[in-house]
């Protein structure tokens, strides 16, 4: 084990609603080493984004959060607001999903990037602007000096994604959360963005949130698979993708077009009243009797490879 940069312990996130509390994250434990890229895989609604937003404390104020998020040994959840503002952007930055709406439509793209630079690096005016153009060039936007003066609506989907990446890189954060950066992009643009990420994740820790297994395989050193607010399998990318231990991970891989495109039967459970015992058992092809009543823990199945399943208990 190297140096843990970020350590999430027993993270529980609940959103109170009129129908009850939505348990979007249930006792998540996760460690991210300095310099590694961890892919967080899972389908929509499995709690991936919530985990990312919880790290930056950007969830709605009425959200119930329990547990610990240690960043360089400091618990982010108990940090005062001003300290948190110093960490956001400078230490931990995020590339939000929905690149179409994540840039302010009434401000020039260059100004928005310069803003991040001004906030943390203290550069002003022309200096900040020059730094913004440099960042746009680094994410390979053609004619960066001209595009910096354009408004977001003049940017294509791929360019907006690049601009958001430039925004996140503005203060050279040591930890980057990328929330589905390849979503809604065509295959060519997607590969360009992935190539860009494999360049910027050098010497930097990245939490790469995605539902794209191929993207995870390209970039990540380790993979964590989330299902219904829990991590069901975590391990080195080769081990998890070549010999998946959890039935859900196997199902995910088999649902890929290249591997037979067999969907997982059923649909994701309600997070207000999740199934008792193992959360995957109603859809699981290998469930046994005690899956219904006992909640499995994460058990080791190989070197650095754990799965949350009764089969290995």
């Amino acid at each position, binding site marked *: 084990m190297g140096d843990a940069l970020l350590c999430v312990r027993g993270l529980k996130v609940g959103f109170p609603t009129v129908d009850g509390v939505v348990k979007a994250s249930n006792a998540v434990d996760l460690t991210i080493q300095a310099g590694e890229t961890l892919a967080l895989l899972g389908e929509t609604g499995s709690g991936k984004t919530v985990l990312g937003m919880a790290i*930056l404390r*950007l969830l709605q*104020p009425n959200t119930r959060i329990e547990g610990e998020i240690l960043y360089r040994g400091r618990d982010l959840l108990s940090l005062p607001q001003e300290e948190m*503002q*110093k*960490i*956001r*952007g*400078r230490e931990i*930055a*995020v590339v*939000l999903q*929905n690149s179409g*709406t*994540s*840039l*302010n*439509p*009434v*401000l020039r793209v260059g100004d928005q990037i310069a*803003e*991040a630079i001004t*906030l*943390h690096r203290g550069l002003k005016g022309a200096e900040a602007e020059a730094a913004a153009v440099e960042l746009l060039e680094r994410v390979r936007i053609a004619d960066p000096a001209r595009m910096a003066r354009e408004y977001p609506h003049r940017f294509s989907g791929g360019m907006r994604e690049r601009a*958001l990446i430039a*925004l996140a890189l*503005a203060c050279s954060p040591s930890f980057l959360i990328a929330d589905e950066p390849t979503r809604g992009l065509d295959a060519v643009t997607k590969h360009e963005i992935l190539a860009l990420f494999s360049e910027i994740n050098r010497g930097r820790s990245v939490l790469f949130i995605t539902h794209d297994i191929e993207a995870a395989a390209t970039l990540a050193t380790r993979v964590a698979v989330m299902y219904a607010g829990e991590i069901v399998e975590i391990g080195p990318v080769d081990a998890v993708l070549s010999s998946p231990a959890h039935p859900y991970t196997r199902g995910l891989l088999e649902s890929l077009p290249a591997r037979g495109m067999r969907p997982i039967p059923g649909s994701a459970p309600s997070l207000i009243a999740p199934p008792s015992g193992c959360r995957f058992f109603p859809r699981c092809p290998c469930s046994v009797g005690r899956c219904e009543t006992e909640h499995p823990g994460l058990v080791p199945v190989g070197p650095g490879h754990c799965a949350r399943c009764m089969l290995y208990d």
Partner: protein
Amino acid sequence: MPGRNAALYLSLGVVLVYCAVALFAPVIAPFDPFVISGPPLAPPDAAHLLGTNDLAQDIFSRLIWGTRATLILGFLGAVVSVVMGTTVGIVAGYYGGRIDEAVMRFLDVMMTIPFFPLLLVLTIFLRPGIYVTAVIMGLLGGLGSVRIIRSQVLSLAVADFVVGTKALGARDGYIMARHILPNVLPLVGVKFVTSAQHFMLVGIGLGFLGMGDPNVVDWGQMIERASKNGGIVLGLWWWLIPPGLAVTGISLALAWFAYACEERINPRFQVMRV
């Protein structure tokens, strides 16, 4: 489109002419508006372009000086109204929760009280000068703007780019000033122009009802004087009609300007320019 642009520039031109007249009133007006300048109730002639009133004051000079009062009432009222509406609206909409709830319930109570009668009662009791009147009008009239701005900010406050800016480590005040304000600014601008028009008319109404500041000349008080002291009965059109026309002119120009601005600003009206 030339038609729309013409309306925009023409109305803006008219407003600017009124502003210039108000600014240079002492130069333009041939007489002091309060002094006896000739025989009373004189018809227009070369010295008195619009004749004189029952107190032998020059009506043309009073008309010119009255521009000041009307513009002050309108624009000062609009500034107060828009600043108050924007600030409170942004804060309430951005923070939401208890702050928003408190502001909205207060507004609910205030908005059940009709604006003009409340203003009348306040002017009767406080006997304010023209500036205080403008501020009171602005505060009362701005209550509606709070609601409009707040409803816009509600959706902006949870917009992805606001979350993104928070993720960059920006403070709330910074986000409100730099990211939310520019997004509501077009609305604020249009609201400013329509409020100015509204407050000018309200100011005229106050003057006509005898609630105007007696130390200044305003068109409302001129119309009141003309109607009560014989202008209508004697058919002295040069006494009654000019202030009325002056009001109509500025009011139309402002309304036109507001519509033209709205068309420019509202993307639904806009033609794509590539």
